[in-house]
């Protein structure tokens, strides 16, 4: 692989948080490369630093040691260049804005013109199946629709890189399955690079072509599993032998990453 295909390159990265009880090592010696068009999941128990790693990529936290490049730039440069779209655990839409103007928010901040904003909002709402809901307010929609609107908002920036921090964690199983399927279709359609944080094994296996298994205290990468599932997937793939086999490998990895029996 040549350098141009590398979207994220992390070398020997560590991060410690100072707390009143002394320093906490959130991340230790992370080495990771994410290529263009990858769908990479970070999975691990709470406290393994998966969200922190994503936040370092997004320049919402700063590493204390090691190096990280996003699109060949520092994370700060990448953020200021609006190189990524970030989807948070909660939709965090502004209640005083309609769905359409929530999606327009980053575009207004970027200083785009009215016509361009309108067409992008329309296009991205259609992409997440929310065409016709633009005039509603967030509190008039269900949790699943709100989260889809927040994905449309991240996509409207038209970044090549999508960072998603447990975006479906607060939703119920059925909505979550549906959104997972939609997300995969979206990924296939737009050919973006996606970094996805989750603590659900089926979700990680279903979505990703690479699964980064992390372990806690200090947060580090235990193992990177390449998926051998076909790129075209629907929910029925979860019944197949190869899916279950892959899920077991992830589970074993999570277990081995624990030095003590805390998580089943």
């Amino acid at each position, binding site marked *: 692989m040549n350098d141009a295909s590398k979207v994220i390159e992390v070398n020997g990265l560590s991060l410690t948080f100072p707390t009143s009880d002394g320093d906490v090592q959130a991340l230790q010696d992370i080495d990771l490369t994410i290529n263009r068009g990858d769908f990479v999941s970070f999975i691990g128990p709470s406290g393994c630093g998966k969200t922190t790693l994503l936040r370092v990529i997004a320049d919402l936290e700063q590493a204390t040691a090691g190096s990280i490049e996003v699109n060949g730039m520092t994370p700060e440069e990448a953020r*200021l260049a609006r190189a990524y779209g*970030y989807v*948070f655990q909660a939709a965090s839409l*502004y209640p*005083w804005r309609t769905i359409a103007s929530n999606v327009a*928010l980053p575009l207004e*901040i*970027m200083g785009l013109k009215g016509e361009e904003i309108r067409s992008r909002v329309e296009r991205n709402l259609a992409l997440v199946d929310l065409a016709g809901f633009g005039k509603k307010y967030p*509190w008039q929609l269900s949790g699943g629709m709100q989260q889809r609107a927040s994905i449309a908002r991240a996509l409207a*920036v038209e970044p090549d890189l999508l960072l998603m921090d447990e975006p479906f964690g607060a939703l119920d199983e059925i909505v979550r399955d549906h959104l997972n399927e939609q997300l995969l279709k979206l990924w296939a359609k737009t050919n973006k690079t996606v970094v996805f944080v989750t603590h659900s094994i089926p979700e990680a296996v279903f979505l990703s072509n690479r699964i980064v298994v992390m372990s806690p205290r200090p947060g580090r990468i235990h193992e990177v599993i390449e998926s051998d599932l076909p790129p075209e997937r629907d929910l029925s793939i979860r019944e197949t032998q190869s899916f279950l086999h892959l899920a077991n490998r992830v589970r074993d990895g999570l277990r081995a990453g624990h030095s003590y029996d805390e998580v089943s």
Partner: protein
Amino acid sequence: MERILFTGASVFSVLGVLLQGPWQTGIAMLAVALIAFLQLKRSRLLAAIATGGMALVAANSLIGLVDEAGAVNAGFWCLVVAAWLLAWGSVEQLSAIRTLSKIYRTVLGVVIPVLFGLWLLILWELLTRGLDVPQVLLPAPSQISERFMSSGSILWADFKQTFLRAVLIGYAIGCGAGFVVAVLIDRSPFLQRGLLPIGNLVSALPIVGVAPIMVMWFGFDWPSKAAVVIIMTFFPMLVNTVSGLSAAQPMQHDLMKTYAASYWQSLFKLRIPEALPFIFNALKINSTLAMIGAIVAEFFGTPTVGMGFRISTEVGRMNVDMVWAEIAVAALAGSLFYGLIALLERIFTFWHPSVRS
């Protein structure tokens, strides 16, 4: 409940007639109360209108009798009680009507408090005149309204001086400055920590101490009153805006950061909208503070016009009805002012959980 009230009304009507009250009024009320009692199930609305109307007619004729010699006896008071019970029963009927019609509920929401206020005035009128309460202690509503009507030009001049000048100008400057200073000190933790305790200190200053000093500084006319209003409204606005500006969730700040938003962009697009419920809270508190401040400040020196000036001089001349007329103006202006701000709040913070229902 309404059955008890109508029974009570009937009993008191009979008592009133037996104790030599005006018998025509007593018989009429007895008839309406009995019919309402018996026909209650047919139509609540009809019963409510009949009893409410009867109660008002009775109250009117009782008020007409109040100045006649010998008319105010035990029977008279029994009939007052009967009319009052009848009116109470009428409102009970109105509020017991279950309907889905939105217009009807809105009308009812206005009618019930208006009827309540009206009956308060009727009882006030009957008690003060019936018991010959000295006018200096408590004038009857009719005397107050008479004074209100005949002194329109004085009241208007006082209103202009105190409300339109001191209150509104002081309020606008005080609230505006509080907001602007809150935004300016937002980036400086040093100023926030230094200014906010002083703010609490100034809010605790007694207005009777500040007002004479402001009169010495800014003279007798309205600017000194506006200054008092500014002092009273500035810090509530400052403190509320400062806490409103820090109300946004960390995740929303992160969101703005991922968009590489500038300080001013996240101020206008996130933090000020998020602060609006706090700001309106301050605007509502300040609307009452401003009225109090301007009126009380006029006790410490004014030209010969102004609501506070009028109250303090007329009370000295025992013209208590004029004092009450000024109080009525102040109450009316104050509640309209507050209502206007509450309306604006509903329009601007329609999205807030406390408003959107």
